[in-house]
């Protein structure tokens, strides 16, 4: 797995950073010349993961959210979104579509969206330590010379 390019960003778990996070990730991914749909998929998945950090991981406190975006040889994007928040007790339950601990205004679709809009998703979580979501998506190559 050869890394072609990488960026790291971190920011406070404020809800107005949700749009910041997806804009930064999509700006970095642009160098692979993705389609509008591929870019929208990535933005949506990032938005879900960052929202989870804000509403769940750091529910009672302000914390830091860390994102690493890598461009991997062959046109693959890898996005890691990490928090040092409360962790997820039951990952299977959390990933179940429509499962939510937040009541009426949350659809319980965060993980379902990430799974559907990205090729691969892996969740690592330790209660009391935090959660790391790793997502991957291959960008279909259209133009040459974009490396």
């Amino acid at each position, binding site marked *: 797995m050869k890394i072609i390019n990488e960026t790291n960003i971190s920011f406070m778990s404020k809800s107005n950073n949700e749009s910041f996070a997806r804009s930064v990730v999509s700006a970095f991914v642009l160098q692979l010349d993705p389609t509008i749909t591929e870019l929208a998929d990535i933005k949506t998945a990032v*938005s879900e993961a960052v929202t989870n950090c804000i509403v769940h991981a750091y529910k009672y406190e302000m914390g830091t959210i860390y994102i690493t975006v890598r461009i991997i040889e062959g046109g693959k994007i890898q996005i890691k979104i990490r928090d040092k928040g409360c962790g997820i007790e039951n990952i299977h339950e959390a990933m179940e579509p429509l499962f939510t601990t937040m009541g009426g205004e949350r*659809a319980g679709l965060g993980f379902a969206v990430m799974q559907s809009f990205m090729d691969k998703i892996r969740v690592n979580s330790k209660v009391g330590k935090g959660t790391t979501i790793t997502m991957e998506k291959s960008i279909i190559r259209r133009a040459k010379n974009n490396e």
Partner: protein
Amino acid sequence: MSVKISHENGKITAKLMGEIDHHTAKAMREEIDSEAEKIKPAVLYLDFSEVQFMDSSGIGLVMGRFRQMELLGGKLRVINVPEHLERIMALSGLGALGVLTNEGKVKK
């Protein structure tokens, strides 16, 4: 302003603007709910034609307003869903609530 609200003949249309995420959905929700509680409309239309982006918070917004309108004794209709939001709408299962319509479908 992230939502433009108009009403006539006891029907409210809330035109959502820009990007819907967990952050922006809150203000949209508050504005729509306060108007709906005042007017108690027979129908609340949520117009998605000017929505550039949404994540599952948009789905939560629709589900929450569906419940709100049930409490107020009216109906909810989701109109003008642009093509780029069709996938997330389909994933949501909102179709089962019977709120999605093909009224005034726009292409983007």
